[in-house]
């Protein structure tokens, strides 16, 4: 898809420059040498700026007609920031998502901590940038992963669900396809994501300040935030598990949801939460994010089955008719209709 190519480059550079990788200093590029000399953070910030999308991802955002809002702080959702240091609580729906990035511990087997730091931070910045494009709010960083919210005062639950599914699908594709190649080349175990998503309606979610003084955050108290975290642990490698409410808010996507118990073959896994006396049975579903992604307006599937970004808004400098010719030349059209 190429939208994360610019994020893959610093990871490759860091790996190449790692003293443990055994690459000769003379063969390193300028940026690789700079990394090795210990200018890590400065060079890293130049390569993956905090508050600027890298070019390919910026093209992607433009294609979607979305603009990321970088002016956010952890633990202070902008629509609920008034609750900080207040004694008020507020009922408001939210989509909660836990993005876990697994397997990064293996990186320490092959690389120095500085290299690992660059790799994990690049992945995390790619996740944050992508999340912001889709209008998500990063509530907390959890190790290499993220706890994010989608939705707020000016967005309806169904759009928040759609954006959450789009972000999680695009980011999973990045980790599964783009990063996979690097790590296969390096002969280390793969890094993968596991994501859990759930929606709590107004009646399910309380917003308020948790903690004391500055040791605090504006956060949610909701069964469905808890369930999102729990469902993430049920996801397969590079998998996404969602709750009943997410499915209900996306009726056009029913074909992409399969109860988790169908995969595990254990009926106990059908419901992620039950209150028998209230006959409350809450189902968890595997989300077929790849098929969902293939159906998005901004995605095209090429003849070899690879997903490609449909760029209409952007003029593509490298678009070359010679690359279309081999496919086109197979056609030999005729005209036999009578006038």
């Amino acid at each position, binding site marked *: 898809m190429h939208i994360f190519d610019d994020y893959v480059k610093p990871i490759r550079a860091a790996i190449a420059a790692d003293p443990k990788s055994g690459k000769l200093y003379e063969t390193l590029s300028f940026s690789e040498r700079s990394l090795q000399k210990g200018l890590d953070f400065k060079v890293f910030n130049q390569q993956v700026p905090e508050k600027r999308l890298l070019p390919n991802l910026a093209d992607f955002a433009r294609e979607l007609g979305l603009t990321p809002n970088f002016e956010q702080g952890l633990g202070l959702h902008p629509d609920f920031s008034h609750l900080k240091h207040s004694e008020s609580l507020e009922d408001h729906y939210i989509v909660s998502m836990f993005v876990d990035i697994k397997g990064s511990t293996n990186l320490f087997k092959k690389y120095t901590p500085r290299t690992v730091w660059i790799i994990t931070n690049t992945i995390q910045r790619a996740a944050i940038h992508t999340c912001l494009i889709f209008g998500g709010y990063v509530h907390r960083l959890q190790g290499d992963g993220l706890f994010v919210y989608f939705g707020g005062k000016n967005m309806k639950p169904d759009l928040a669900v759609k954006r959450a599914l789009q972000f999680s699908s695009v980011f999973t594709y990045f980790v599964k396809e783009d990063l996979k190649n690097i790590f296969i080349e390096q002969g280390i175990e793969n890094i993968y994501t596991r994501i859990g998503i759930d929606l709590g309606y107004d009646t399910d979610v309380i917003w308020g300040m948790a903690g004391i003084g500055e040791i605090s955050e504006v956060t949610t108290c909701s069964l469905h935030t808890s369930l999102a975290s729990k469902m993430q642990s049920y996801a397969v490698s590079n998998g996404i598990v969602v709750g009943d409410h997410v499915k209900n808010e996306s009726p056009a996507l029913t074909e992409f949801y399969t109860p988790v118990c169908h995969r595990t073959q254990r009926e106990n896994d059908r419901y992620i939460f039950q209150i028998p006396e209230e006959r409350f049975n809450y189902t968890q579903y595997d989300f077929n994010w790849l098929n969902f992604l293939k*159906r998005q307006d901004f995605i095209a599937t090429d003849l070899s089955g690879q997903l490609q970004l449909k760029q209409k808004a952007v003029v593509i400098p*490298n678009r070359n008719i010679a690359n279309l010719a081999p496919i086109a*030349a197979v056609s030999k059209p005729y*005209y036999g209709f009578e006038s």
Partner: protein
Amino acid sequence: MVLKANSVFERDFITAKERFPKLKYGWDAKIKMWVITGELDICDTAGVYWNTFQIAMLVPRGYPYCVPIVAERSDIVPRDIDWHISPEGICCLDTDNSLIAMSKSGINVGDFIAEKVYTFFANQIHKLESKQYAGAEYAHHTAGVIQYYVEELNIPSAEAAIQILKKVLNKQGLSRNDRCPCGSGLKVKSCHETGIETIKSFGPVKIKKDIENIEKHLSAEPL
């Protein structure tokens, strides 16, 4: 809703959908055909996206032994004979002869889209961008049919094609050791055996029609 494979077509379509995810299908009881509709995104060999066509495909219930009809609904291709598309948007993907021959051995809907439909639209983009098709095209009407016999079945001329078509229609003089009716002097087995088998698959109605049309075409040609 998970697609359930109840027929050969539906089973094949599930696989085709992996490659062309924005197409969907339904059964039209009135016309008794499968109807495939949706978007076909065209990318090049480098994976770069070029354009999207809205298409509709009618697949007769005789699938896989059938010729699907393909129409463009998005109006990107100029409705002009030189663009191989009818005013209603029906696309002339190939000669009837090629398509009939293909249908006799059975088609696969995914392969048909990849090899005939996708390439047709890629070729239209090529012409829109560069004013010419990337490969060859057939002449219109009967001249294209003659071109098919000459280029695809290696028959030397329209006259030779008529001779072979008549022999196939009358089912005589086409044993492997007979002289090939193309006039080469060789035995059938060393000459147009494969082409003759292909022609047999067209059926008598199409063969008769081709004979009539080619004869009419030749008599109308200026001396």
